[in-house]
């Protein structure tokens, strides 16, 4: 099992969800985050003082999948999130040791989907 973490542009969230649905990945968790990457920040200013903003708004997705779903998940995220411009984001994959469904107590592969 793997835990996929993806940082994407906020406005791509719906497209990513769509692409994942098409691949039958319907379970995920989302938080909002600020990210600092290759993308240049921008300047704000407040009362004449310049503020360099390099933590940009991103959406963070966390998707636990069985190994055979890893590829479709990654493909789906890329399909939905990729615009070709800097700031599109990154995907991190971690090994998932265990997964438990609280309601039933099911574990592992059975719990994930």
């Amino acid at each position: 099992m793997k835990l996929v973490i993806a940082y994407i542009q906020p406005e791509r969230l719906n497209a990513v969800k769509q692409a994942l649905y098409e691949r039958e990945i319907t379970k995920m968790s989302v938080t909002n985050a600020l990210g600092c990457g290759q993308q240049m920040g921008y300047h704000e200013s407040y009362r004449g003082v310049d503020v360099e903003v390099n933590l940009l708004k991103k959406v963070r997705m966390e998707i636990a999948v069985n190994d055979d779903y890893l590829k479709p998940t990654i493909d789906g995220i890329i399909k939905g999130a990729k615009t070709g411009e800097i700031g599109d984001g990154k995907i991190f994959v971690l090994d998932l040791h265990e997964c438990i469904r609280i309601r039933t107590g099911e574990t592992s592969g059975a719990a994930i989907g």
Partner: protein
Amino acid sequence: MGNFTRRVVPIAMVLLAIGMSPWAMAQDEPGAAEAIAAAQEQMQYNANVLWTCVAAFLVMFMQAGFAMVEMGMTRAKNSLNILMKNVMDFSFGSVAFFVVGFGIMFGATNGFFGTSGFLLGDVDWTADDALAQWPWTFLIFQTVFCATAATIVSGAMAERTKFVSYLVYSVLISAFIYPVFGSWAWNGLNGDFNGGSAGWLEGPEGGQLASMGLPAFVDFAGSTVVHSVGGWLALAGALILGPRIGKYGPDGKPRAIPGHNFGLAALGVFILWLGWFGFNPGSTTTANGEIGYVAITTNLAAAAAAITAMCTSWLIFKKPEPSMTFNGVLAGLVAITAPCYTVSPVGALAIGAVAGVLVVFSVLFIDRVLKVDDPVGAVSVHGVCGAWGTLACGLFNLDGGLLYGGGMAQLATQFIGVVSAFIWAFGAGIVLFLALKYTIGLRVSEAEEVRGLDIGEHGMEAYSGFQIFTTQ
């Protein structure tokens, strides 16, 4: 405010009162009677100034109401921008109307626009004669009316309009577009101060309306003059601007872009409701019992519209929809603005009730059929319900309304007024916004729209530190 015939009443009334005072008639001593009349006129004048100024302040406060409604019903990332637009259209508008607009609207007119009174130049600012000071009060009252018309547009064009283009628009509406139509319907309100001239819709002797045998156009406080004009300009702007990114799906179906702060939106609605007690009753510009009368018709229409708008949304969407209900309140207020002085309270209930239903269907029609993206419903509230309220005069006026046996003449005049407002305001709007589009540009870049106009146009955020999902 009101129609031409209306304005002379106060003075006439005073004169009448003198002639009819028992003492004056019984005895042949004009001296005391005249002194009493003069004293009374002076006192009435002072009271009128007081009332008109207080009303003007209430109307001025509507700027805050518009700002809150517009901000609350759009997204957080564009909040500062819409606030700035509201502050600046009032600021530019106040100056532009003083310098140019007032003269065009209330100067001596050829029937189509006034040509004197710029910078209130013909008023002696140091005069001690109380009555000669009226233009000061009249100007502040008219300034806040002009500002109301101007600020309507910002809501319909929210979340995508270039700031600098909006500023240009707001100078032009306050200096020209609004005053020109205003001069057609209200020029005579300035009474003797412009030599007694009148706009063509006021039905002066020998004018177009009179020659057709039609009565003067009735728009007591400005359903058409202020609100429809603003609403049709908003329509033109929203049309040329195009919808916000993401507003329509690839299939052309509208998508929801929910407003981000309904506490402020509701506050705005209440502020506007309050301000309307300056707008409508204030348009008598006279401190007498009629203030209460107009306050009642105004309040009942708003209440009725809130109820019917809520019920309509409940029937259609299965839940009572707050944003539609809030629009309903405003729709009722806009609709009663023209007829507030000339209909009965029960008539006001009816006019409001219709407006509440109308605004819901109008919003859906504009959103789904016309596919014009009006984030706050400004076109429906001000344009459509303004037209409805103006026509309603032809139906519900106690004197001359169709339903009260007055025949079709008033309705015909109202129709002419409504149509001419549409042609003028929508036409001028199309020309203006197209011109802006092809010169300095009307719309921000796509990237800026996605990130939000606050950062793009002003380099700041409205809610620093708050975690806000901006997935759309």
